[in-house]
């Protein structure tokens, strides 16, 4: 998974300064930097996610004021299986950044980013609904697209595409010859 990562990548000035800024601010904030197809991904430890996100928004050299997307991906059966991904945009500097947190399948709990960006509310509800990631201190953690009594988390890789429902079987008498 880390074959594309290169901590010493020769990257565009603005992005490099974001990574360096975060490293200077807290040496534990950046565990890995992935440069791929011109996109920068910073892997953040779970404990520092909210503080790092707030730093990305507030620091004068970063100003990532728009949280454009949040999603999750499941690498089952590998561990840590979940990767929660946040896409940030700085409108004034025309810059993008991706934050990523790796979570194990045994303990899929993470701090909510709603206190930093209120727009994270529905995005995190969607991740909770479809992946079963729990967000600490989320103001309204309910299912959003599935019914409240749905069992399981459909976007996990171990959830079959056709679901767990019984495939209806044709009654025996109802065959072509009987008609």
């Amino acid at each position, binding site marked *: 998974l880390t074959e*594309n990562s290169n901590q010493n990548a020769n990257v565009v000035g603005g992005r490099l300064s974001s990574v360096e800024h975060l490293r200077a601010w807290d040496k534990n904030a950046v565990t890995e930097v992935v440069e791929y*197809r011109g996109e920068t991904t910073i892997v953040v430890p779970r404990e520092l996610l909210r503080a790092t996100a707030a730093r990305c928004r507030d620091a004068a050299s970063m100003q990532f004021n*728009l949280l454009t*997307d949040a*999603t999750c991906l499941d690498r089952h059966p590998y561990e840590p299986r979940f990767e929660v991904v946040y896409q940030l945009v700085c409108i004034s500097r025309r810059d993008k950044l991706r934050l990523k947190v790796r979570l194990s399948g045994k303990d899929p709990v993470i701090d909510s980013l709603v206190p930093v960006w209120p727009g994270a509310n529905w995005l995190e509800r969607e991740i909770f609904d*479809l992946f079963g990631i729990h967000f600490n201190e989320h103001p309204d953690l309910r299912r959003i697209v599935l*019914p409240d009594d749905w069992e399981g988390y459909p976007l996990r890789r171990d*959830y079959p*595409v056709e679901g767990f429902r019984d495939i209806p079987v044709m009654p025996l008498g109802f065959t072509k010859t009987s008609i």
Partner: protein
Amino acid sequence: MTTVETAVGQAKTMVLNMGPQHPSTHGVLRILLELDGETVVKAVPDCGYLHTGIEKSCEDKTYSQAITLTDRMDYLNPLGNNLVYCMAVEKLLNLEVPKRAQYIRVMMVELQRISSHLVWLGTHAIDLGAMSVFLYCFREREEILKIFEMFAGQRMMTSYIRIGGVALQPPAGWRQAIERFLKYMPSRVDEYETLLTENRIWMGRTKNIGYISAEDAIALSMTGPTIRAAGVAYDNRKLFPYSSYDEFEFDVPTRTDSDCFGRYMIRVAEMRESLKIVRQALDKITDDGAIKAEAPGIVPPAREKMKTEMEALIYHFKIFTEGFSPPAGEAFVTVESPRGELGCFIASDGSPKPLRVHFRSPSFINLQALPKLVEGQLISDVIACIGTIDIVLGEVDR
């Protein structure tokens, strides 16, 4: 079943269920409204009635097969959905698309933007009681759909944009058809404006209704005409140009009033800007040239080649049975859809099927600002506010 906790907790408020079958919700959106008389105290949107699991289905299809699923998310902007998905796969593959195909894509997507805004304008006006605008808007939309049918053989679910380019060469007579459209369309936009912009009822129903400040709009991750009406010139076509948009000259209209009227004015202005872009694209598209990238094993070979060359036949067979495998990695691409920033996040694990496909749908994220827009307003303004957010429920629920 979503329930609402009463905000005031006093006997004088009542909870009213609006939708999911109410015509002004533009699909199947349900809103729980807590009312004090006619004033909205609290609004809780409830969505998911149209959830079809498109993202999950994409994981079970090859990269090319999933294009048809993207058409069906935002059914007023299928070409834009095709575009963002194909661009994300092309980014994973590091595939360069020929310039001519890029210009065709731009032209089609801008025509789609006009048609989407026309549906929006017509239905929004009918919600607020202006019946005739709907008929005029759909008259012009029909012309755009005819152009799509000419290009792709389909009116709505075109799947015209493919990985590496577009599906077909532009058909005979396409230039005249678009010239004709560009000739009459500006005066038609004027016509809608004559009906609405200075209409006293229209102004009464939209001015100072559904205000949101620029700070709140950014904090709530809003994009598209909604955020531009709040004075933030955030447009992916300008900020992060894709598909050669940097070669086109157009303005990003912004306003500062940020109410329903402002959002209406922004969308009308965007229709005029889109016409400018279509005109420039028409001049840039040469009469002949490549419409697909040269990428054996990814882009299917031409039919004649497949019938005559052994190698092309093998590639054809491989693409349609097994598909192709982009290298492991992730890509996030955003485009400007008529509703805002449409994004596609694809993760590949090096197999012929994507590990994860996620769509950042502008309708879904803009909809979460609805309570902010309507709380404290009258119940009739809720309808105006749903209209100006311009949601498509197929995209909200995916």
